[in-house]
């Protein structure tokens, strides 16, 4: 039965997340945008609270909850599980502040990677810890198959060597999931991810970045120099399977891209809501029944942006819902990420324009959201990478045909 409303059972979670966003994130939003690199200590208590909320329930509020499920819980086999609840929680929290969400202890993208592919033993060992994700290198961003960080087996340990940049919460996390290759000659299939403890002496922090937005979230650059990790730190299958290719390492993205799309949806909604309020103060009301072109230019522009927002939201929920129901969703996950990323940027910048100096000045948060928005069309796969993935799927092409 087609229904695209928030499921009843997740309404309490959504409302809780909204309260957190309203009461915890918004009041300190500007503070940590200005105080880049200082740790938002207010989040510690909140993180414990969220751990409590997640305990024993399948509705997580952070990125840690996502895991593929296959059994149904509706009377017709339809399931609304942790992918959907997580994305709903993230939308609300990012309506509060996306930088602060990214700084939430124990809710990093590394946690999603662990949740997605870790063995039971690894889950036991690393569960409850905060995990960051290190993929990008100075010479390899979108082209993650050509990373140069190496992992060599030496006795019972892997030895990692290389350089990693743009590691979200890299300095604050307990663990870092590092992508490295077992053999550069083999290509994609040899790329594996390894869990590295933050206090490993072979892991050296080079610097923290100064950024356009999401300044509350720190972004670290590391050098790995003879960084030794136990054999058991490899996530997933240690065998190099050329038939399976990149699938193993990339499958995390089918789960995490809808979450990042959700972040974009949340920021876009924040901008739209604030702008609607501001427009109303200026005497512009939005009427849904009168044709947009018969209303003021500002109202027509607003409706256009809200329509894009609606499409982004629903594509995001669709991708998460498919993951909950064990349906292959890499096409829909990339569609959601592409649509939400570009919509978030367009909407937030459009809202600043509509609100004029009220939008542009730092008295309000609209300018901050417009700066935060840009990263959402870049990380976890840029707009162009998403379009490439979508195109390859629709056109049935491989990466050597459509490069």
């Amino acid at each position, binding site marked *: *039965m*087609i*229904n*695209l*409303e*928030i*499921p*009843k*059972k997740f309404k309490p979670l959504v409302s809780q997340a909204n309260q957190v966003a309203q009461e915890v994130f918004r009041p300190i939003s500007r503070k940590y945008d200005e105080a880049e690199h200082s740790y938002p200590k207010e989040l510690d208590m909140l993180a414990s609270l969220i751990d409590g909320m997640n305990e024993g329930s399948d509705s997580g509020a952070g990125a840690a909850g996502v895991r593929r499920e296959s059994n149904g819980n*509706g009377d*017709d086999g*339809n399931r*609304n599980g942790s992918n*959907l609840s997580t994305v709903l929680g993230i939308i609300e929290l990012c309506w509060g502040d996306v930088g602060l969400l990214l700084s939430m202890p124990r809710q990093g993208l590394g946690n999603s990677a662990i949740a997605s592919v870790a063995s039971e033993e690894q889950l036991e060992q690393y569960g409850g810890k905060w995990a960051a994700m290190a993929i990008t290198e100075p010479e390899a961003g979108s082209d993650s198959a050509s990373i140069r960080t190496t992992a060599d087996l030496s006795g019972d340990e892997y030895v990692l060597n290389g350089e990693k940049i743009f590691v979200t919460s890299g300095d604050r996390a307990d663990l870092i999931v590092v992508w490295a290759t077992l053999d550069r000659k083999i290509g994609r299939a040899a790329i594996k991810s390894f869990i590295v403890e933050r206090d490993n002496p072979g892991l050296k922090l080079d610097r923290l970045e100064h950024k356009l937005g999401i300044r509350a979230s720190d972004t670290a650059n590391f050098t790995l120099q003879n960084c030794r990790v136990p054999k058991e730190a490899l996530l997933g299958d240690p065998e190099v399977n050329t038939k399976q290719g990149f699938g193993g390492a990339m499958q995390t993205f089918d789960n995490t891209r809808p979450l990042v799309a959700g972040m974009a949806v949340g920021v876009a909604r924040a901008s739209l809501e604030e702008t609607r309020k501001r427009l109303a103060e200026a005497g512009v009301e939005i009427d*849904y*029944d*009168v*044709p*947009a*072109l*018969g209303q003021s230019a500002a109202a027509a522009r607003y*409706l*256009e942006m*809200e*329509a*894009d927002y*609606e*499409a*982004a939201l*629903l*594509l995001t*929920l*669709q991708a998460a*819902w498919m993951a909950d129901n064990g349906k292959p969703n890499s*096409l*829909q996950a990339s*569609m959601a990420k*592409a*649509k939400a990323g570009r919509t978030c940027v367009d909407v937030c910048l459009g809202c600043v324009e509509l609100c004029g100096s009220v939008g542009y000045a730092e008295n309000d948060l609209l300018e901050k959201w417009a700066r935060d928005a840009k990263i959402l069309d870049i990380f976890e796969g840029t707009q*162009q990478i*998403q*379009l*490439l993935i*979508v*195109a*390859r799927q*629709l*056109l*049935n*092409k491989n990466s050597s*045909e*459509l*490069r």
Partner: protein
Amino acid sequence: MPTATEDKGMAERSMGLGLRWLNRLAGSDLLDRIRIRKQVERALFTGTKTGFRSATAAGRTFKAAQKLGRPARQAPSKPRSLFDISPDDEQQMLQEGVRDFAETKVRPVAGEADADRTTAPELLAQANELGINMLGVPEELGGVMHEQAAVTSVLIGEALAHGDMGIAYAALAPGAVATAIGHWGTAEQEATYLPAFTGEDTPAAALAMLEPKPLFDPLALDTKARRDGSDWVLDGVKSLVARPGDCELFIVAAEAEGLGPALFVIESGTSGLSTEPEPAMGLRPAATGRLVLEDVRLPASALMAEGEREAYVECVQRARVAWCSLAVGATQAVLDYVIPYVNDRTAFGEPISNRQAVAFGVSDIGIESDGMRLATYRAASRADQGQDFARESALARQLCAKKGMQIGSEGVQLLGGHGFVKDHPVERWYRDLRAAGVMEGALLV
């Protein structure tokens, strides 16, 4: 050098002669003496403006069958607790039936129907046999759907428009009248008109809302209904009505004196009602035309829903969702057509789809079409559950108008010059998809 007069074609010259004669006639006082000036002027106005305005069809006599004490209504569906994008089993069956029909019966004749500006009556009869025009008829009156069927209507509109948007308009237009009566008709209107829609020989019918003017707003109508005793008298012009010359029944939107915008049921053949062709950029298989109302006198019983504004606004919203469903089907048709084309077409030694500039165009079609679909489903599902869907229908319309047209345009662009010629259907979809942002009323979910 030939003079301007010599250069004129035969038609222009005869028009010139006619004007000269007319001027003499107008200047004489003969007309005033025999008191026919007004009639002649009107005949002339009509004759020159349209070339061939005609009376509406002489339709059947609608007689009230067994009348219920109060109007029958479909129940809202039970509130659904889970998020879900899968149609239920019944919907899937219907959807598959219509998809098959659209692929095997509609698509092959779509080019011809577009060129001829007509859809074969046999094809419309076959479409009707699929049950697509009785989704809004309450069970008590011979309908098949116990609950409201906006989602089902959307799935059917989408599937049919994948075959052809113009044929879909022609085929679904009568259903809009049945649905309107099922939702907002009085007990008498239901008893009089709905039985005709559940039998075999269903009438052509049209819900006429749109008017020929820029920035048309369905809430601010130029068509007026004034009170005269207990009667209503309607004047106005309706635009892009499907097959108006064939229709036996109309529902017309008019600004009702003292009430606001409202719906009236009008049988064809009513005095003062006429139609004229209004061929358009697209939707040509629906043989679009204008419906002209001149002093059309109706009994009080012609008014629907007692003129309640809420009912009228809901009608506007349901129509927008219906047009979205057609746009979704047409954009999916574009996507399905361009994929094999760009994969097969080679340039510079390889398929053009190996180029990102081409491939990304395909990605955007896929992304925006899916977004349009989900927004349309959401609006329809809210309607079925009895929830307010003003926002959702407006946003779906906004998306379908803008992205639908972008997709129509990109479809032609990806085929280049081949997209511009009639060997390929993309130029037709380009013309049809413009309608998604233009049409109001006419179809309902």
